[in-house]
Structures are given as structure tokens and as C-alpha cells.
């Protein structure tokens, strides 16, 4: 067994986290910053943070992930990182020539209390910031929140630093996609396009973290939301934020600063949440839903009704982030699957209640933990086995030990491709999710069925 020391008996842990279902703020900030066009994320701390975040994002996306670091030494940790950051800013603009440097802090620089805006002003005063270039920042202490918080904070920073308004409203809607795949951001844009709604989507990692192989490497590829576009977000007629945890802060900032009204929705995973997204977009923009979207929706429901017997009553264990888990749980419940164990490493008030609401009619007890870890999830599974696991690659150890099929979903996915190219949001994304779920369930049936009931038609 790969996790041979995990006991079935569950004992309380107050101090020790084992096999976390989360990671730290800065990586989320780095991922979000990569969604700005021509932006180099910068990690203000010791080298390791940056190296770790780049490595993890690279393994997940199998794409170049560029970011710089202040390379703190012991000295810097004692006397502060100002010199390092100023020098970094000069070097970055000179050598890599991004339009934007997006600085995020670390537990190190937060503990010593570096004041980034002050340092940036210093750099500017010293002429280290070329005209028309920007240094933005966000505080992302690793000991507060999780990677989701970091994503939310950096996304809010885009508003804080760039959003403006001349009072005149533009015929466009801000879309904040949440901590999702580049493919998902692309799909969310496509849905809005199909509906004929002009949108500014930010952050936007599509075209950055799912780029083509062309034989030519570009430090800053075509993708990402431009500074120009971000500037206009203060003048948009509304904001639709997908995923309260990841997108809520930026949406509220736009409301507070520029009276841009916002709708904060769940991630559009599954037909119910996607319906709410599309309907909100429809009402907000005052347009009609084109038939092609109804067709996409109908195809998703066709899979649901055609294959219902394979979904019905299957128990599922889930690990992921709150925004994702809420939407996925609703989707699974809506097709009569039975989420049974649900864990996120991210503390989220309201999360458990929301899950309880959604699973109210699931005819068996549901375990929910926020925060919890995968060690606990594994123990729950040992006590109440499930038919399917859904979550990131680290679940594969549980999957193998307990011989349960795994549908890879969420972050990070280090051992399969596809997630960065094919969305799981929207109706099409729902179709992909159902295909993955069915493949997992039916492959298992094909493997385990006695010869006399090995099925040709399924």
C-alpha cells in the first residue's frame, strides 16, 4: 500500500496537517498574474518560493511559467528586502521587458514587514520603472488563507491598480472567471461571445498557459487581459463574478470604487450553475439566449437522461477548492449521484452549510470538512467506501490503495493532459465531465463484471 500508515480509526488532530488539500497564497497570486498580458509575476521573498510555484504550475500546465524573485538572503531577511526589490525591478524591465511586474509577497517578506508600495515608489523615484510600465502588488502572506486567497487578492489588485472610470458607462460586462483552467476561461468568453455580450474577462490565462507549440518561444505570448482592457473595467455596466471566494473581492471592489454593480455566482460547472450564469448574463445584458446555447444545454441533458442509470446512486468522494466543490456537488446531486465525502483545505465560512443545503436530499450522511486534509478524506473513505473519486492528482494514491476509479479534476493535475485544453465549465464542460465520469464507471464495470454479464451495449 502506498498510504500504508493511514488508519481507519479517526482521531482528532489539532496541530498536524497530513496530505493537505490546499497550498499557499503566493502560487494563486502568481497564477492570476500570468493572466495579465505581458506581465511578469514577481515573488518578493527567498528563491525557493518562486522556484516551487513555477515548478508546480509548470507540472500542471506543461507550459513555460516565468516569474522572478527577490532572492532574499539572510541579510535581506534582517535588513529588509527593499534593495533586492528595487534591483529586481530594474533588472526585469531591462532584461525581460514586460509591461507589468506583479509583485506578491511571501511569509518571509510579510513577517519582516516590507512595504511594497513604498519600495515601488522608491524604484519609480530612482527611475527604475520605464514610462508606460507598471509595478503592481498584493500582500499574500502564506500563513493566511490558501492559494485561492492569493488568486482572489491578485485579481482584486488588478482592479485596485488599473480600474478607472470617466463616469461614462461602457456597453460591456466584466467577467471574473475564478481560479479555473485557461480552457475554462476561454469557454466562459466563448459563451459570452455566442450571446453577443461584450466582456472584459480577467484574469485570463488562456493563450498563456495553454499555448501552441510553434517552434518559437515568446516570453510574453498573445494571451492575457491587457492593461488597457483592465482600465475600462471601472466603466463597465456590470460585473459577473464566478466563484465567490476567488472572484468576489475584485467584484466588490469594482462596486465600491466605481459603483459597477456585481452578481457573484457559483462557478458554471454543471447545467444548473451554467443556467444561472447564462441567465444572469442574459438579464444583465438584456439580450436573448441564442439557440446554439440551448442546443449545447440540450446535449448535456441528453447525456444525463441517456446514461442516468450509471449515475444514479453512485457515491463520490471529492477534494478541491470551495468554489469548485460547491458547483460540482450541485452538478453531481442534480444527476442523482451521491457526494459522500467532501474535503477542502481552504477555510470557508458558509461552505459547509451550502454543501448541506445542496445535499439535503442525498439519502445518506455526507461528510464535509473545511478545512480538512486528504488524510482525513482517506479515513472517511475507509469507513464509508465510495464508487468514485474526483479531485487532484494526489488522490491517485488513495485511488490505488482503495481500488477506486479517479476522475482528475481541479488543481494540481500533474499526471494527465487535457485539462488545460478542454473546459469543464459551461454545458460543453459538463459534457466532458460526464464523459470522464462515465468512462471511469464503465471501465470499472468492464473490468469487474463476471463474464456472463460483460456488456456489449452500455
Amino acid at each position, binding site marked *: 500500500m502506498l498510504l500504508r500508515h493511514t488508519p481507519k480509526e479517526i482521531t482528532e488532530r489539532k496541530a498536524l496537517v497530513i496530505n*493537505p488539500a490546499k497550498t499557499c497564497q503566493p502560487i494563486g497570486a502568481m497564477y492570476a498574474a500570468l493572466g495579465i498580458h505581458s506581465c511578469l509575476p514577481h515573488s518578493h521573498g527567498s528563491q*525557493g518560493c518562486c522556484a*516551487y510555484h513555477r515548478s508546480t504550475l509548470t507540472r500542471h500546465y506543461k507550459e513555460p511559467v*516565468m516569474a522572478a524573485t527577490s532572492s532574499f538572503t539572510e541579510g535581506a531577511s534582517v535588513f529588509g528586502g527593499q534593495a533586492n526589490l528595487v534591483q529586481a525591478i530594474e533588472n526585469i524591465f531591462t*532584461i525581460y521587458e514586460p509591461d507589468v511586474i506583479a509583485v506578491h509577497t511571501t511569509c518571509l517578506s510579510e513577517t*519582516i514587514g516590507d512595504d511594497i508600495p513604498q519600495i515601488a515608489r522608491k524604484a519609480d523615484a530612482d527611475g527604475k520603472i520605464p514610462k508606460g510600465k507598471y509595478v503592481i502588488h498584493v500582500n499574500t502572506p502564506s500563513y493566511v488563507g*490558501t492559494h485561492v486567497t492569493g488568486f482572489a487578492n491578485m485579481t482584486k489588485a488588478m482592479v485596485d491598480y488599473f480600474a478607472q472610470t470617466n463616469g461614462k458607462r461602457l456597453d460591456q460586462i466584466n467577467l471574473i472567471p475564478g481560479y479555473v483552467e485557461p480552457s475554462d476561461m476561454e469557454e466562459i468568453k466563448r459563451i459570452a461571445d455566442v450571446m453577443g455580450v461584450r466582456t472584459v474577462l480577467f484574469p485570463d490565462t488562456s493563450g498563456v498557459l495553454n499555448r501552441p507549440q510553434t517552434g518559437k518561444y515568446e516570453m510574453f505570448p498573445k494571451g492575457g487581459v491587457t492593461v488597457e482592457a483592465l482600465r475600462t473595467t471601472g466603466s463597465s455596466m456590470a460585473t459577473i463574478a464566478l466563484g465567490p471566494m476567488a472572484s468576489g473581492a475584485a467584484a466588490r471592489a469594482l462596486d465600491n470604487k466605481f459603483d459597477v454593480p456585481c452578481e457573484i455566482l457559483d462557478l458554471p460547472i454543471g447545467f444548473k450553475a451554467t443556467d444561472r450564469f447564462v441567465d444572469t448574463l442574459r438579464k444583465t445584458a438584456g439580450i436573448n439566449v441564442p439557440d446554439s446555447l440551448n442546443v449545447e444545454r440540450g446535449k448535456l441533458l441528453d447525456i444525463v437522461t441517456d446514461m442516468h442509470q450509471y449515475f444514479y446512486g453512485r457515491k463520490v468522494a471529492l477534494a478541491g477548492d470551495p468554489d469548485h466543490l460547491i458547483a460540482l456537488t450541485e452538478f453531481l446531486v442534480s444527476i442523482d449521484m451521491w457526494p459522500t465525502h467532501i474535503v477542502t483545505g481552504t477555510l470557508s465560512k458558509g461552505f459547509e452549510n451550502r454543501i448541506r443545503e445542496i445535499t439535503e436530499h442525498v439519502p445518506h450522511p455526507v461528510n464535509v470538512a473545511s478545512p480538512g486534509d486528504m488524510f482525513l478524506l482517506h479515513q472517511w473513505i475507509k469507513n464509508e467506501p465510495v464508487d468514485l473519486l474526483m479531485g487532484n492528482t494526489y488522490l491517485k494514491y488513495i485511488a490505488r490503495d482503495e481500488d477506486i476509479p479517479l476522475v482528475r479534476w481541479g488543481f494540481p493535475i500533474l499526471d494527465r493532459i487535457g485539462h488545460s485544453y478542454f473546459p469543464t465549465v459551461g454545458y460543453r464542460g459538463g459534457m466532458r465531465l460526464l464523459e470522464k465520469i462515465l468512462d471511469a464507471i464503465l471501465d470499472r464495470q468492464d473490468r469487474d463484471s463476471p463474464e456472463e454479464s460483460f456488456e456489449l451495449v452500455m
Partner: protein
Amino acid sequence: MELSKHIDTPEAEEIDPREVKQQLLEKVPTKVARKRAKQIIVNDVREDLDVPQIGANARTIPGIITQRGCTYAGCKGVILGPTRDIVNITHGPIGCGFYSWLTRRNQTRPPGPEDANFMTYCFSTDMQEEHIVFGGEKKLRAAVQEAYDLFKPKAISIFSTCPVGLIGDDVHSVARDMKEQLGINVFAFSCEGYKGVSQSAGHHIANNGIFTHVVGLNENGKEGKFKINLLGEYNIGGDAFEIDRVLEACGITVVSTFSGNSSYDAFASAHTADLNTIMCHRSINYVAEMMEAKFGIPWIKINFIGAEASAKTLRKIANYFEDDELKQKVEEVIAREMPEVIKVRDEVRKRCEGKVAMLFVGGSRAHHYQELFREIGMQTVSAGYEFAHRDDYEGRKVLPTIKVDADSRNIEELEVHPDPERYRARKTPEQIAGLTEKGFRFKDYDGMMPDMAMNTLVVDDISQYESDRLIDIYKPAIFCAGIKEKFAVQKKGIPMKQLHSYDSGGPYAGFKGAVNFYREIDRMVNSQVWKYLKAPWQENPELAAKYACD
């Protein structure tokens, strides 16, 4: 092998490395250029293998995109990562523990299904703001207690992350107390990420810790006629398994491996070996020094990367033990292993001869893997280490001349004295003299540069910008580095081989490993897929519309 020591691909020859160096420096700010100039050296091997001095183990310049990681990574990730029966608890916010969880492909094989293996687990105190403000010792104690209650391990170790040092948690006293309280070995590492200038400092801290807290605790080490320790081998992709296979076939006993496929008890009995053999000079040579000082165990540099090198290494070990039977056994093993190696090597060499490679990785692999490339006729035009020191480039003879800077000074150097009971010189001064006479070399490492061709370009702590430029200039057939570099290189249409994790491959050590590597490189540099990156209409965009539209 001599022959292939200078580059004979015209393209590469036409390139003037001095000019290249200028190109690498011209764009960067003067201050940076001045510093980098010391770390970018055109190789020039004089007699006595003298080479130009290179700047190494120096700070990375802020804002320069570097390959380097931190001290925590070197300590918890590299050295202690492969230890399966120690519960390694990261004391800090969740990230550091998460990122160092199972990502290095160190393989481990517990003796049985019941035996301890914690490598698949990630343990962290998951520090929150209140612990930063009020201190984390209490939580750390509780975490150690919970780990003990759940797993009853032989040993528990604690790793400090950046904030821990700053807020002044005394992890060592926590370790001492818990050791007493639990009656198992508990020890801590002050491996905050900001220490030193790279992972290297972390290796040092880790090895010092193992030496201090574990080595010497177990007198019942493996028995055998020829007992060695294998130092600086981390069993990535199963390298150590292949090395063990070969050594066992020779009748040589590996008492302990630092730290691939390692066990706590083996560490503890390391002092019972009669020879220390060093794979990765950078990460561990000082441990060998300390073991010699304390227990009288001589050490030699070895290398199992490359079939020829493996053969050389086996002979060297046999010579050390001065045992004819062993020498004969070694020759038998080499004779048994080489035919398959030669068969594949020659077949692959046909397709790889003359192609050009670049290696920028680690503290020894950038050197060792040149050997493997050479065996299939491939030239290394440029190479460098990520975190090595001058001696790894220029050879140990420069050790006395290396000045210790502020960053290194903070990394504790242990003072070691002969162990009153257990010191036992494995060789008398006479024996040592005799061996040396015969050309046998102890503590020998000449470094990478003397082993490289003239006019090759040696770059320490290479930056993303520099490697990008180098590839444009040299257009190598293959580029070797780490995961962060992989896809930027491949986007340029150049196959990229990871030499930290081996991508999904390995083992590459020993004889079978060499065969694996030949095949892998053959696959990569000769694959057709790189030819298809441009679409037909990008190759010939002319528009000969067959039929006019109205």
C-alpha cells in the same frame, strides 16, 4: 574517449565563445554584467588541468530568473526527502510542505509491506497568522506528539521554513524535549529558505544534522567483506537500485546510501563501513571528510553515470580493497555487462554522432552526464551548475583559495574529532602511501572544467535569459536542465531532458542505466515530431488558388 574531447561539429566550431559571452552580457545592466562576467567562462584547460577561475556559489541577482531553489528545498527536499522511515515535519505555512511532497521521483523500496514508508505523506504544522504573532513552538510540539501517536515512527525530524527563524521558534529545544518525552530520536533543521545562496546550503545543513543526530547510533550495520557507503546518490528514477545491483554482483556491501532508498538504521550504522564513495561531490563531500576525521574511513570520488565511468569506479573500489578475488569479480561483472551496453551504444551512436548538447543542472550531473553523451558521440558545447562551488568546476585543488563569504559563513561547519572508542583508521599511512604510489587517488575530484573541451562555455547559475540566447546561438540537439526550463526550451523546437527528475525515465546510472539513457536520447534527438512544427502554408505560403471565385 580522448578524441571526442574537442568539438568537431563545424557549426559549433565557427562560433566564438568570447563573442557569445559578450552577447549574453550586452543587454543586462552594468552591475549585473560585471557580476555575471565572473560566472561565464570560456573553458581553457592548461597543463595540470589548470582552468580559469569561475565565480560560483554566489548570490543570485534579484530579478534574474534563476533555476535555483532554497535551503529548505536542499535540506528537506533533496537530502531528507528520500528517507522513508523518518516522519519529516515541515514547520511553517502549508506551501513548503506541499511543494516538496513527492515531486522528486526518489524511489524507495521498503523491505516488506509492513515496513515504514512515509514518503507518500506530507506533514506540516500549517502555521497560521496567530503562530507568526505568538510563536509556533506550542503547535510544533503538539504536531510531533500527534505524529508519534498516529505512526510510532523510529524518528521524527523538523524543518524550519522562513518565518520560523524570524519569529525565533526554537525548534531544536522542541526536538530535544520531544526526544526525551517520546523516547524516539527527534531532531530539527534550521533550514530557513533565506539561508545561503541556493539549495547547497540546505544539503550542508541536512548532512550535518544526519551526521550529528544519527550516524554512529547503530553498531549492527550490514556485514560483508567489502563494506562501503554510497554518498550523494538519491535514487532518482531508481539509479541506486541499479548501482546496488552492480555492487552486489561484485560482492561489495553497501552499508548505507546517503540518501536514496535509505533507512534510518542504515544511516545510523554508516560509521561501520570501510570506505566512503562519493557520487555527488557537491552535496556531500564534507560528510565524507567528517566521517574520516571521526571514524577513520577514507573516501574516494566515484561516478556510476556512464558505462565506462561505472567500470572505472568498480575497478577503483576493488583497488582500494587490494583484494585479487574482488578485482577478478569486478572484471567478470564488467565483462558480463558491457556487451549489451556496447551493442546499444554503437547502434545509437550512429544516429547521434556529432550532435550537440547543453547541460545546466545540479551540482554534479552537469559534469557526469557529459560522459554519457560522449559515449554516443555527442558534444557538450556549454554546461554549468545550478548550485555548485568552485571546487566542483575547477577541482578540489582550489579549495584552499576559496574565500568564505557572508552567506556561506552562516552555514555551520562542524568541528569533528576522532571518536575515542570508535575511530579506526581503515588504512595505515603506509598502505595509503603505497596505493597513492600506484596512482590510486583519495579525495580526488578534478571538477567539471578540466574534463570539458577547449573553448566550451561554462556558465554558473545560468539565467533564463542566458539559456534562451545560448539556444538561439548554438541550436543544440538537446538541452538538459530542470522542470522550470523544460517547456520554454521545447517551445523553441529543441528537445529538453530533465536531469533532476529524469522526466519519466531512468535509471541512468550503471550499465543498464547507460543503455536506458542512450535509448532515451536517441528517441529525443532523432524523433520526427520536431519536423512538423510548421504547417505547410507556413513553409510555402504562396497562394496558387486553383479556381477563381466569382
